[in-house]
């Protein structure tokens, strides 16, 4: 569970000026010196098709992919920057599309998600570049990649009443705060009250 005092802390961070965020960022940025350059990001294609058979560079690796602390920071930013309001706790979607599935409208590679946050997207995603520095955005990417790792039992998705599919649901956020919600599932609820843990 996320300690309530931690939540206060994230809001307090939000309340600080952007300048403060930028300052605190510098220390982090020095540690993680390997953020992709603007030139690299400019080359990132949104979709998978290339005219003329030309080859793009391989996808940029998430510089923080394997850092549990980055994923944890990403979860805090997801709440404090109100991402959670649109995309829902654990990224189930609502005003904004679900991030809990493995599919992303504007690309699922880390750099795609990074650019969707920074630039915004025309159908409702606001552009965060002036509010979120690179390191916070990469933290968010790490968290979003974590919550999007839905279990895959087949290539497509079957929806059915009998036999029932999907068969599982996540333990809901009001009962468990976690960076890995797909590691905590229970039988699909059919609109009934979730079992209390």
């Amino acid at each position, binding site marked *: 569970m996320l300690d309530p005092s931690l939540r206060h802390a994230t*809001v307090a961070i939000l309340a600080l000026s952007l300048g403060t965020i930028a300052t605190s960022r510098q220390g982090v940025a020095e540690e993680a010196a390997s953020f992709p350059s603007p030139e690299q990001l400019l080359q990132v294609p949104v979709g998978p098709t290339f005219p003329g058979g030309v080859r793009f560079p391989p996808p940029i690796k998430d510089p923080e992919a394997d850092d549990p602390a980055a994923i944890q920071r990403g979860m805090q930013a997801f709440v404090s920057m109100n991402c959670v309001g649109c995309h829902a706790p654990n990224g189930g979607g609502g005003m904004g599309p679900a991030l809990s599935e493995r599919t992303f409208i504007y690309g699922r590679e880390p750099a795609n998600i990074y650019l969707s946050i920074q630039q915004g997207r025309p159908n409702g995603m606001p552009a965060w570049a002036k509010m979120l520095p690179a390191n916070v955005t990469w933290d968010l990417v790490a968290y979003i990649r974590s919550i999007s790792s839905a279990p895959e039992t087949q290539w497509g998705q079957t929806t059915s009443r009998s036999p029932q599919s999907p068969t599982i649901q996540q333990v809901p956020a009001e009962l468990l705060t976690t960076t890995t919600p797909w590691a905590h599932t229970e039988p699909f609820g059919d*609109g009934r009250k979730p079992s209390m843990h």
Partner: protein
Amino acid sequence: MYRIAKIKPPSNGSDEGEGTLITIASNVLSNHVRSSILVLSGLIALSAPAFAQSPAAPNASPTNLDILSRDPNQWVMAPHDYANTRFSSLDQINAGNAAQLHLAWTFSVGADRGQEAAPLIVNNTMYVVAPYAGPHPNQVFALDATTGDLKWSYAPKPDGAAQGVACCDVVTRGLAYDQGKIFLNTLDNYSVAIDANTGKELWHTKLGDLNEGQTITMAPLVVKGKVLIGNSGGEVGVRGWLTALDENTGHIAWRAYSAGPDSDVLIGSDFKPFYDWLKGKDLGVKSWPPGAWKTGGGTMWGWISYDPALNLIYYGSGNPGPWNSNQRPGDNLWTTTIFARDVDTGAARWALPLNPHDLFDHDEINENVLLDLEIKGQLRKVLVHPARNGYMYVIDRATGEILSADPYDHITATTGVDLKTGRPIENEEKAPVLGKNIEDVCPAAPGAKDWQPTAWSPRTKLLYVPHQHLCMNFKTAQVGYIAGTPFVGAEVDMYAGPGGNRGEFMAWDVTEHKKVWAIRENFPVWTGTLVTAGDVAFYGTLDRWFKAVDARSGALLWQFRAGSGFVGQPVTYKGADGAQYVAILSGAGGWPAAVAAAKIDPRVRNAALGFVGATQDLPQYTSGGSELLVFKLAGSGAPQGNPSHANGAQLETGNAHAQ
């Protein structure tokens, strides 16, 4: 206020007076009243084209639309009439023959999201509007109401970003009509006037800003030449208002905010709230932490009623923001408040907050049905408000006094309404504590009933109520305000209420304070309702059934399995062929059903502000849709002779080939 006017030609410009009105007092319409309706509709049929040809007639009688709404052949405003009865005196379709209903024609509005809009029917033309999706968001279509032939369409210039700040799917609840003009609200905050005959744009006015989280979803209402429009965005910290536009120019005549200083709320010397705790200066500022009213919600995305005799409009304001009530100590006036306002100036006459310091997102934008009822031996001018908080309020509409407030669904959040103060009595066990999960809060965030409007029949004297039956887990969290982003601060997880059903369609006896019959539905009943003089009530379900039931017994008369779930508003009218038609849009969406139409994960219960918990299995029953369905009785209408190709297609035979 259900009344039938004696006949006056609409062009004489006279106001209706008490002496010209007949109040329906008996359970059954007398033959005299029936014939009045027939004569009235005949006059309207003659005069309606004159309206259409002079769209901006400046000397038009202010009561034209009121009179027009009494013509049962048409359906000229979303709530049917200013009293919001949604009762039609047509009776060709009745409890005895409704089983013979069948499809007459259909039309696709081309946008597969929640279809909440009411079609309008004016002068044998049907006007429908699509949700904010597809290649032409909020496109308006004019169709021949008898044949379904497309006359024109109008596509506003869209800003796709609007869908990113619309809390609960990209819905619209409909259009408005007056004086030859159709009025459209777009999700991205434009009000547009369109020539009803040609589809030509007459004016457009921008009313709000997406970067402040504002959108518009409600159906406008035109009263005395003013287009009344409220904003949406109670989940984005939007400061709510109701705005009146001049219907001929689109210029703002007045704007009344729901919170802030009295000068902004249009509270002046003639403001006379009934309860003492509502008296005082600038309560819309003082009942909040410093400045919090500026991002405090109180939007207006529901229904407006109008009483011509009192010259008052009635509507309710939405929830305070954020949902996390711990961040806004105080009564948070004037959110979740029923307002009575002078329609000419917007000045508030009385106000009644139903959920002061709202804890659970219980907006009170639901319809206010204006009725003249005999209560304890006295004829009272009342409004009936089926509240989101689960109580059926009967309120004196002249004074704002609550006459009664009876629970109509399972309630744990409160234990009753104190009639001395007008305040609900809160259940301390369910009060939100920051960071703590509160279980079994009933009704859930969308309330016992949301925007989906009721209908009232003067024949049965029953109110027909479509509603949900849900409880929730509710856990508050601190949230910071960032303009244009959600301002919620709650993890919500809804589920079926006691008994396991998630919705209900029921008939409520307003004077006896009780349910007369109820139909339990598996899913929340999110459509509006229509009731007719044929004693048939209509509603639809999320699992794709459109139903006709006996208004007296609730017995199922007929049902139709459609392409997508229903969240729309059924209407009825008479075609040029003399047949009675019933129309509704099919297409799942809106807050409860976006999970079946949008990219939302049914395995994540807190998705869609927690509604997914309650409707996560809906994708097993339906996907999105966009189909207008129009029904009539088999064999009804003037004989059409042998079928012929209405579109000019010609059959070529073997002889033609030989030539």
